[in-house]
């Protein structure tokens, strides 16, 4: 894997090559602009992206200059702001939301010396890499724990948008739960927003009133859902960064993402001039996805099984999306013994059997 090689490149070597390449202008730091869809808070998606630059700052110090552009609405404003950031001399652009895709791609095509990393997209160019986390590897493990702790056998998920990234996290969550209790049912509320705490709380309350007693906060940027669950006394978990302090009693855990290794490797490669755009779909094996802050309520024997499964996912001997998998409509999704490829997973637009709510069409 090329990426691993980048990781091994030491910071000093990279700086040395940067100085060599830039000659007299070596004193100019490398400009990195990070565009965020929501304010940079204490938790959540934007926070995770900002934290992902910490290893870069640690390695390069004053040789990099980071510009944070928070709360940028997707659309023509984002296009202008990204264009301006590049015109100001930033050479690495991290576009932190799917909706920036078209504008960011135009920038990458206009200026080959700029490296663009784009969250959750599907377009690729020589200087443009989309990146996404294999959340499903973590949510599968969460599903196992959820099924063991649920009394009603009904699980719920408050989910942002019905895009493959989130659909697969719900599917893997369901499959993980079914591996412990085959009769488990999962209900989903699509809130169609990345950031609307009031709406998200309403959705969580609706799921709880339907009898769901473990809630999956799927891509919310605030502890909205987690806080409601703590109040109602039902278990909850979320993605990206730990929200345990908002639900000390009923927090099930966090499928955390750490973009540090990926950002560091990409910026090393940019400086060394070896960056090659590719679809970066990263998971447990890449140390990008990790489940943290497990609840102490999980039975010890199941916890042992979860740890074992996690190890198998990490070494590649287990793929949560291995057949037989039946689709929610009853047709065959994956044949017995066949594992879905990354390409199939990033394009997944159907739910597995056990997800009670149909996908919005």
């Amino acid at each position, binding site marked *: 894997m090329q990426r691993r090689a980048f990781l091994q490149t030491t910071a000093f070597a990279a700086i040395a090559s940067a100085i060599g390449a830039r000659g007299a202008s070596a004193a100019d730091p490398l400009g990195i602009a990070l565009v965020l869809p929501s304010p940079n808070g204490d938790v959540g998606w934007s926070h995770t992206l900002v934290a992902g630059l910490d290893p870069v700052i640690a390695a390069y110090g004053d040789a990099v200059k980071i510009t944070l552009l928070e*709360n940028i609405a997707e659309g023509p404003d984002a296009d*202008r702001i990204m264009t301006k950031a590049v015109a100001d001399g930033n050479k690495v652009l991290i576009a932190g939301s799917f*909706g920036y895709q078209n504008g960011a791609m135009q920038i990458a095509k206009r200026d080959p010396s700029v490296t663009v990393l784009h969250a959750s997209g599907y377009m690729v160019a020589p200087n443009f890499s989309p990146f996404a986390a294999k959340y499903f590897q973590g949510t599968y493990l969460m599903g196992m724990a959820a099924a063991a702790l649920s009394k009603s056998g009904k699980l719920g998920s408050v989910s942002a948008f019905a*895009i493959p990234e989130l659909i697969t996290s719900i599917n893997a969550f369901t499959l993980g739960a079914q591996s412990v209790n085959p009769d488990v049912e999962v209900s989903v509320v699509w809130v169609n927003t990345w950031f609307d705490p009031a709406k998200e709380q309403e959705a969580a309350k609706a799921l709880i009133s339907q009898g769901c007693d473990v809630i999956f906060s799927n891509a919310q940027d605030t502890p909205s859902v987690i806080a409601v669950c703590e109040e109602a006394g039902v278990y909850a978990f979320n993605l990206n960064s730990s929200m345990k302090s908002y639900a000390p009693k009923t927090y099930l855990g966090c499928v955390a993402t750490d973009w540090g290794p990926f950002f560091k490797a990409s910026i090393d490669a940019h400086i060394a001039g070896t960056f090659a755009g590719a679809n970066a779909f990263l998971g447990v094996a890449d140390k990008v996805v990790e489940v943290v802050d497990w609840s102490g309520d999980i039975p010890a024997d199941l916890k042992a099984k979860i740890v074992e499964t996690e190890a198998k996912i990490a070494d590649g001997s287990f793929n949560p999306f291995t057949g037989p998998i039946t689709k929610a409509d009853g047709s065959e999704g994956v044949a017995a013994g066949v594992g879905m490829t990354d390409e199939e997973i990033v394009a997944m637009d159907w739910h597995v059997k056990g997800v009670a709510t149909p996908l919005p069409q």
Partner: protein
Amino acid sequence: MIPRLIRRDRASLRMAVLAPLLALAAAILVNLVLFLAMGKDPAAVFYALLLEPFLGWSSFSEVLLKTGPLLLIAQGLAIGFRAKVFNIGAEGQFILGAIFASAIPVYFPQATGGWIWPAMLVMGALGGALWAVVPAFWRVRLNANEILVTLMMSLIAAQVLNYLLLGPWKDPQGFNFPQSVMFQYDAMIPILLPGTRVNLSLLLALLSAVLAWAYMQRSFGGYQFLVGGLAPKAAAYAGFSESRAIWLSLLIGGFAAGLAGAAEVAGPIGQLQRGISTGYGYAAIIVAYLGGLHPIGIVASSLLMAALYIGGDNAMVSADLPVAAVRVFQGSLLVFYLAAITFVRFRLVWPIRKGGAA
């Protein structure tokens, strides 16, 4: 001891000119303290905020690009505001305009020809006006408050947009992301200024200012509007129809906002997506009042608002200013300006000692 505001007999022209400058000075002073406390370089921040939008062709062209929709919507709204018909729902009419315009490239993605973008503009204007029919009808027939109805129609419009993007109009190749296909070349409005994103719709916005001026200052219809707003009873006595004013106000407002929505999807965006409006419909209300509801004043105020937005973005990118501080600056400038303009038109009168403050 609460002072009262009394309207001046004659506003001083000198103060009217000075007021915006004083407001700017006050905003700079207050924010200077804020920026210093934050450890930012105030010179760099104010340069990015206030000067950079006007220096350099590329950033000024972006100001013009943002001026277009603000100007168009605000001109439409101001006509109604002068007749005291408060259309707060330009945002929804903007969205419907964008949706109606997008119908052509969404259903005929392969179509070619120079007729496509003009047809989209016409569709957009019709869509916006149609969305304004509901509040107009309810106000005239059922006496339902148009402020509430137009506002709520905006929420419905946002949901209609969501529905289309998540369902029937979703790009089949778009991995389920809520957005339409990218529009074909002929569905894009031709660029007016080469090398920028400014398209021909800017001329439409400027034309709207001329038309609004001609209508309000030079026609009997415009006079009826003005009287209806200033003295409704007198207007009724003179036989000016109130329901006609309501219908016209809302339809013109919807028409202009819809046109702006169409120009946005057929212009800088090039597809229908969730983020088509960054609050243009609401910002235009401020623009209309900042411009004194006067067609020429609105041209100036829409330019100013657009420059403020661009300057704010610049400050975030170039001067490392957090988004919250940018909003504080923009907000304080507006507050100081409104305060200054109030003192131009009114004077403070203290209950005991008269004429104490000015």
